[in-house]
């Protein structure tokens, strides 16, 4: 979240799209009810299904699965064409005035720089026009035809309400009502928040959907303000923590990156990742990349990381490509991966194309499961009739189960959607032989290290030299780990401005990442978390919820990264002169001497407005990017593409251009592509999702949850049900090009047929909570049906939009 849960109470308009907060985040949803009850906030829900969130809404708009960019692009077009823009904000805080180079173009849905063979873009032509000093040229009047504002205007002018309705199936008048309500927040004193979740990320163009939402919010002046923002609702209690700690195949903690194969030398790596400012006075905070990276390497390798060996740079693996879940299981399927450690994950239930996942697991020599529960994956080799029809006698995979603890059986920090690190305590001892994950990893690591010490082996240094100074090496404590990610001064840290002032003494825990150095005198295992565990104690364990400004900021409750900041980009809550847009909801403003307010300023505290520093300190531009010259795989502006399986035969935005039918930069392996369905056989759009009664596949192991939602079902609109002769409660068979499932039909008016041009689109809802393990009635993995294709930037699978057929079982 750019903002935080409590801040939702400050909103005037709430848009829930690509998420279902009432069902998936019921506790957080209370802040929506607060905003409605106490600010007269209006709630809009845009969703393929009339969900329990929609039941709470003032306005509901149906949408076809996978058409969100068309919808949001249409709203952007409405705002620009009706002059519903917070123009002063746009000029001060976005790259609207920046001039894009002449090489940029968009033709028939394909941007400049496309290599059709490799299905990849070279983003060089998307860059700004630079002056002789290397700074981007700007036109403050926004009239230059190549300035971002004009390009944006031209780009989205194509997204007319009629076209939106044709693509999305949303009736034009309903769509216009959404536009009008969103447009009501273009004034400085009205704000809209957007709440989204996996309904936006689970698409072959998920990252671009989110960017479209962000563009919309920037045009309305709704970023960095109370009651505004782009708010990603995270699905697990600590999935934000997972992201922060970089548990992705090409990431390092704190949003740092692993080196690539092409980073031959240390300097190649540092140059690639240390941006130069694109405007004079821009803070360009990522310019500090070397400080964060060197501090990480000092945390990991201590004295073995020296200036001479480039801070142990060669200990890090260099990647040739990402090893996301789709790729990993493709390699496993091909027999190229034969051992797999699966920690806190249930691939057989959670990953697309269940049959492929099962076949891949059967090819492994060994599988290690670290999980508190007996999952579908841990028991993939067991025959459970139609729900897991495998030949046990043919499976040679050796499975090791290492039982781990549940959250209530361990102490430590959880990072929630609000970026708050909240410390929690053990509520019960784990049963039987179950151990906490740090202990399991500690045992594994110390034994592997002993093997290296005894037997040598190729390149033992990265294992041998790893910092492992925990009191009990086989069981690192939560406090020790927290202090490690917080970081320490390895020498006295001197204030560069006042040489006689020591900011942190040697050996002390650091209070802020502003004290990190690139000369090896500081360590930090995850720089964004620095400040969480300081010399003042465990800041994550703080429980003072006093709220002096009445905005719900509660700066003394737990710790929010970065540096206890509650709302990101909060300097944008004031105008260019540092004066709050809304005097009743002040976050950060200029008091004549300093930037102050109800939050920790996301800005240099002493930067006076006339310095023109820019409110978005992380971008090289110093402002927010409506147009992204780098960073996105499929183009600098979001463009609508169809899902890889669509009930439509044509992309109505770019008809007649097959190469722009779906995301031109999304990766799909050949054998997966061969398993894509065609509308003739699989005419119905399908989407999978979770329900409020369950948490993934876990809670079906609990009696209380199994009682309140006991058995697998699929949701079918009454019109399609009538057509197919399906009665409420009948058993139905749902099939895709990859397999089929059977379940009870819930026939409902909540899934209505949509008119998409000349095609009537029926949508089928597939809640995904059941399996062959646990207490609830046995069911099928819904991912039997979903395709192995992911977002072009993140490879997050397209669970939310594919096609199926349905018939009475």
């Amino acid at each position, binding site marked *: 979240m750019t903002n935080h849960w409590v801040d939702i109470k400050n909103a005037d308009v709430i848009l829930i799209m690509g998420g279902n907060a009432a069902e998936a985040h019921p506790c957080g949803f209370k802040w929506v009810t607060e905003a409605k009850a106490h600010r007269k906030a209006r709630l809009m829900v845009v969703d393929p299904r009339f969900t*329990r969130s929609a039941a709470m809404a003032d306005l509901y708009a149906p949408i076809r699965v996978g058409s969100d960019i068309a919808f949001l692009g249409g709203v952007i077009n409405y705002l620009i064409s009706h002059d519903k823009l917070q123009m002063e904000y746009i000029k001060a805080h976005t790259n609207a005035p920046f001039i894009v180079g002449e090489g940029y173009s968009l033709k028939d849905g394909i941007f400049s720089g496309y290599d059709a063979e490799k299905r990849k873009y070279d983003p060089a032509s998307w860059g700004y026009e630079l002056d002789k000093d290397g700074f981007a040229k700007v036109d403050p009047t926004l009239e230059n035809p190549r300035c971002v504002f004009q390009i944006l205007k031209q780009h989205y002018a194509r997204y007319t309400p009629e076209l939106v309705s044709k693509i999305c199936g949303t009736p034009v008048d309903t769509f216009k009502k959404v536009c009008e309500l969103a447009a009501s927040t273009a004034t400085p004193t009205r704000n809209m928040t957007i709440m989204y979740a996996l309904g936006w990320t689970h698409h072959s163009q998920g990252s671009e959907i989110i960017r479209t939402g962000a563009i919309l919010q920037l045009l309305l002046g709704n970023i960095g303000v109370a009651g505004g923002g782009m708010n990603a609702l995270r699905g697990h209690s600590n999935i934000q923590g997972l992201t922060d700690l970089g548990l992705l195949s090409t990431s390092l903690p704190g949003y740092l990156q692993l080196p690539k194969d092409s980073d031959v030398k240390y300097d190649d790596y540092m140059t690639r990742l240390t941006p130069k400012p694109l405007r004079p006075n821009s803070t360009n905070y990522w310019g500090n990349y070397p400080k964060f990276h060197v501090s990480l390497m000092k945390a990991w390798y201590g004295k073995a990381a020296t200036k001479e060996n480039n801070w142990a740079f060669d200990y890090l693996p260099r990647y040739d490509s990402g090893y996301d879940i789709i790729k990993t299981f493709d390699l496993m399927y091909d027999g190229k991966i034969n051992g797999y450690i699966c920690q806190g994950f249930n691939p057989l239930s959670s990953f697309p194309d269940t049959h492929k996942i099962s076949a891949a697991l059967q090819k492994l020599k060994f599988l290690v499961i670290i999980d508190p529960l007996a999952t579908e994956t841990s028991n993939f080799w067991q025959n459970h009739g139609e729900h897991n029809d495998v030949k046990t006698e043919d499976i040679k995979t050796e499975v090791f189960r290492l039982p781990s603890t549940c959250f209530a059986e361990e102490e430590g920090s959880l990072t929630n959607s609000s970026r708050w690190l909240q410390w929690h305590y053990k509520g019960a001892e784990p049963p039987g032989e179950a151990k906490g994950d740090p202990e399991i990893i500690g045992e594994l690591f110390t034994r592997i290290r002993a093997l290296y010490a005894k037997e040598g082996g190729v390149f033992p240094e990265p294992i041998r030299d790893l910092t492992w100074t925990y009191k009990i090496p086989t069981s690192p404590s939560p406090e020790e780990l927290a202090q490690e990610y917080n970081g320490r001064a390895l020498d006295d840290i001197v204030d560069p401005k006042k040489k006689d002032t020591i900011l942190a003494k040697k050996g002390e825990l650091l209070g802020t990442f502003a004290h990190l150095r690139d000369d090896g005198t500081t360590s930090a295992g995850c720089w964004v978390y620095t400040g969480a565990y300081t010399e003042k104690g465990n800041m994550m364990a703080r429980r003072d919820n006093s709220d002096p400004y009445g905005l719900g900021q509660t700066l003394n409750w737990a710790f929010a990264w970065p540096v206890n900041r509650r709302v990101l980009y909060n300097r944008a809550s004031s105008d260019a002169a540092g004066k709050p847009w809304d005097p009743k909801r002040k976050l950060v403003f200029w008091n004549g001497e300093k930037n102050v307010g109800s939050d920790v300023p996301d800005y240099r505290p002493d930067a006076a407005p006339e310095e023109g520093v820019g409110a978005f300190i992380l971008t090289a531009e110093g402002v927010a990017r409506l147009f992204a010259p780098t960073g996105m795989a499929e183009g600098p502006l979001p463009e609508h593409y169809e899902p890889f399986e669509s009930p439509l035969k044509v992309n109505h935005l770019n008809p007649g251009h097959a190469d722009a039918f779906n995301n031109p930069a999304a990766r799909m392996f050949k054998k997966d592509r061969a398993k894509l369905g065609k509308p003739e056989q699989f005419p119905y759009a399908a989407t999978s999702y979770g329900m409020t009664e369950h948490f993934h596949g876990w809670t079906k192991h609990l009696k*209380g949850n199994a009682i309140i939602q006991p058995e697998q079902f699929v949701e079918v609109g009454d019109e399609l049900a009538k057509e197919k002769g399906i009665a*409420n409660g009948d058993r139905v068979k749902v099939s895709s090009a990859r397999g089929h499932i059977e379940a*009870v039909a819930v026939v409902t008016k909540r899934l209505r047929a949509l008119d998409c041009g000349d095609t009537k689109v029926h949508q089928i809802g597939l809640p995904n909570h059941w399996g062959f393990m646990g207490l609830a009635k046995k069911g099928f993995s819904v991912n039997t049906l979903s395709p192995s294709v992911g977002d072009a930037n993140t490879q997050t699978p397209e669970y939310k939009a594919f096609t199926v057929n349905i018939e009475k079982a």
Partner: protein
Amino acid sequence: MSSLQSLDIKRRSATTLPSTQARETLEVAKLIDVSKCIGCKACQVACSEWNDIRGDIGTNVGVYDNPADLGPKTWTVMRYSEVEEKKGEEMAFEWLIRKDGCMHCAEPGCLKACPSPGAILQYSNGIVDFIEENCIGCGYCVAGCPFNVPRISKQDSKAYKCTLCSDRVAVGLEPACVKTCPTGAITFGSKEDMIDHAAERVVDLKERGYANAGLYNPAGVGGTHVMYVLKHADKPEIYHGLPKDPQISATVGLWKGVMKPLAMLAMGLTALTGFFHYVKVGPNDAEAHPDEPEDGNGPHVIRSSGPGQMEGKGNVNPGEQA
């Protein structure tokens, strides 16, 4: 055994002796704001956790309502209804979600119908409580309830329903469902405060276009200690058959008046017969019916919450049934 002191007992079933009047306690109420309820069923789970009762893992019968009905081990359930109703000038599709359970009537039909002394109590705070140790399993409370709430267990032939967490309220806590509700849709306090809170909510709902928003606190049963804020208070029946004008059946009234001495005699004979049955045959064995659903839900399954199938169970007139 009663959760509150005998000092707090206002009425007792089948008892002619006057109750204590030395202490006046605050009249309480639970207010369920249907417009804030997201149907998450956390209240259902909290109810089963606190009271330590769990029914069977059932099946899906084509709706979100699970368990499909109230039962001896299911004292509250969410009811879902798909309707088209007027909002402002237009018709709008709505998915109405109502938490169902005992309404704790000021004039409780169950208590009036109950022939067993002290099996049903009403406390001076308004809570109506079943004292199972005194229950003879006759089912008159089921007939006497205009909301179709009590359920007789096939396991032990006792009547069960929501206690409004009388044990929690007795020690100054709110009911478990209130404590757990994530959106503040369920609130608990003095009846007066709840009525005031409801009035504020109604203003908000009217401003949003629900011209008929209002409080459900039906006069036919003397008002209730569980009340609803409804967007369509003029049509409570669209909320899965919430009765528009619940009344205690005339038969119950008659029974309690003229017929009472005769009825008491009949009950006495029944008890006597039961005693001889016990002596001669032995106790009824709950294990003798292993195939019957533990929750006793069988006959109460409602197949759909769709607007076409809204013959609300709550409208059943116990008089006709008897």
